């Protein structure tokens, strides 16, 4: 089962390597990983998706929480949450028409005579489908950000 885990950690050298290292060290998988400083610059927020059953995910969150640099951890799947991913796609301009882009809810973020760059935001499985649909357009490059998540209730991941 896919799970989204979010955490706040000290924004300092070595913190990220401890988090990532934990996964290889304990044999857990990381599917996606995003990390960026928060509006409090001393903290970074890291979001990762991983595959595992309840017991594995519990172990992962406990082990993450044990890391000294990790301030707080949350398994977003414990309550309702919103998950979004950003995808950028580079295509030959001739391969796609403007109305098609609109239909796919894409946004043109760059274009010249030959190239067009599109931006898509959505749930990861919707982007998976989109990637399939775009295959006929022979995209030159596709880049995905990995998931971000935020809970849908009043609970917040803050300190």
């Amino acid at each position, binding site marked *: 089962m896919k799970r989204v885990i979010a955490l706040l950690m*000290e924004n300092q050298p070595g913190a990220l390597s401890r988090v990532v290292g934990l996964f290889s060290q304990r044999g857990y998988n990381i599917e996606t990983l995003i990390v960026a400083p928060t509006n409090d610059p001393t903290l970074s927020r890291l979001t990762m998706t991983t595959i595992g059953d309840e*017991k594995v995910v519990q172990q992962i969150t406990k082990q993450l*929480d044990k890391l000294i640099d990790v301030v707080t951890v949350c398994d977003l799947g414990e309550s309702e949450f919103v998950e979004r991913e950003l995808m950028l796609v580079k295509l030959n301009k001739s391969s796609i028409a403007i109305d098609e882009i609109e239909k796919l809810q894409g946004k043109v973020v760059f274009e010249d005579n030959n190239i067009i760059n599109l931006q898509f935001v959505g749930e990861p499985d919707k982007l998976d489908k989109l990637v399939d649909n775009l295959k006929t357009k022979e995209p030159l490059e596709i880049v995905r950000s990995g998931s971000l998540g935020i809970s849908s209730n009043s609970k917040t991941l803050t300190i």
Partner: protein
Amino acid sequence: MLTLLAFDLKLLGIMRDMSKTQTSGGDALIRSLHEEGVELVFGYPGGAALHIYDALFNQSEVEHILVRHEQGAVHAADGYARSTGKPGVALVTSGPGATNAITGLATAFMDSIPVVVISGQVKSELIGTDSFQETDMIGVSRPIVKHSFLVQKAEDIPEIVKKAFHIATTGRPGPVVIDVPKDFTDPNHTFDFVYPSEINMRSYKPAKAGDSKQIKKAVDLILEAKQPVIYSGGGVINDNASAELTELAKLLQFPITNTLMGLGAFPGTDPQFLGMLGMHGTYEANMVMHNADLIIAVGARFDDRITNDPKKFALKAKKIHIDVDPASLSKIIHADVPITGSAKECLTSLISELKQHNIEKNKLEPWHKQITEWRNKHGLNHSMLDVVPENGKILPQQVIQSLYKETEGKAFVTSDVGQHQMFAAQYYFFDKPRQWINSGGLGTMGFGLPSAMGVQFAYPEDTVACVTGEGSIQMCIQELSTCFQYGLPIKIINLNNAALGMVKQWQDMQYGGRHSSSTYENSLPDFCALSESYGHVGIKVTQLSELESAMKECISLKDKLVFLDVDVDPDEHVYPMLEAGNAMDYMHLSKDKKTW
């Protein structure tokens, strides 16, 4: 004191004595260690650590012990920590000094021992350039430390040391590395030394008291139990909770077993004690675990050397699990009542809650009767010295019993790893915590002698015996030289079976007796002559009739390191031994007897 004084003087506007408050990073490091109450540092100098060594030279509060290999430094610091409960400190240089410390760090990490390792690092401007003796110590040590710090500027050193000791010694203890680039200890750069009086870390708040609702649930299970057992581990010793553990066991009259790491937490000579459990645990301890209806696990982590196949582990038992590390709870075995908290505090709460109830002890009678039957049936023979083996060879168990007898059970015993370790754990009764020092989690051969040095430094008047084998002792034998330099009268009890005994035992039992690379083909040194060349005393024993007098002589030479080299039966195996992939009641009891 100095910091307070400086502060007062500052307030009064009096000119400060600059020599007292201005320090270099190197001096600040040593002064910070002194502030933490550190008296001894085990280490080995080298280029990147030379400013620190100069700072050591210029003061007398922190003593440095020169080992012969950095692995020995960390094991010595570890032995000091295990025997005293205070953090041990090792100091090494960059590159090979740092990598040599790695085995010591991993050993301390696996057994949750508070050790602080300070490693010199190349100058900060050289980091990442593959400069001479450069190793990414933070990266290399990352999976085997509780935490680590790379110093970013000299002024940070006091706060980092404060944090390092706080992290190493609180919660689930563990090793911490402080990696110090050489330029940050430079004597030409000085600053005001202020040691922080307290530290606040928003990301580190170890649990203390157990949840009271969980304690009440535990009490309910305890009051119902008819076939209970207390299973305690190293966490009880780390948390100095032996008195509370003993009080609980006595209050309830429950049988109790200790893990390899937990021996001594409950008196080994007490009739309630079942002996060690697990892979080479006693028959009665393993049978009790398998048949229990309630297991109270305290500061133990259900490791694979205990549970055997976790799917078949103690299926009839409810489990109460007390641990300071929440990640240990339900990691291997589901805890019906998990309690996160320090062993000492949780046991205290449990005892006071239990005292409000009527504890009915009569209902345990059939269980105690059953345990006595098991013990009488296949318990260990603790009168091995009366046995005269037909082949005339000395049994390793007899050597341990002779050591026990001669030291009246009061020695600190360190061990290496292998058969001798198991025999020592089985046949020496440890009545006190911190008396038995061994590498349980990592199983580090070479641990015994350097850890004994740490113990002997902490307890110069006590007998410290290192039970070892001819394989393990050769992994850190260079420390015989350190022992001579500092006059450490360690008693090395070498169970010499001329083979890597435990490897050979497994090869006998699981590989058709094919002894692949487990013997030395007559290449062993004369250990007595070797020890004598280092300035020590060597005593060789080949006959059972000589054993007790030789042991007496060995222990009586109070001021000398004695290497007692005893030829033991090379064919002896350690029993009981759990049969892999089964429940805890599947035990080999001898070469031709098993429980199934």
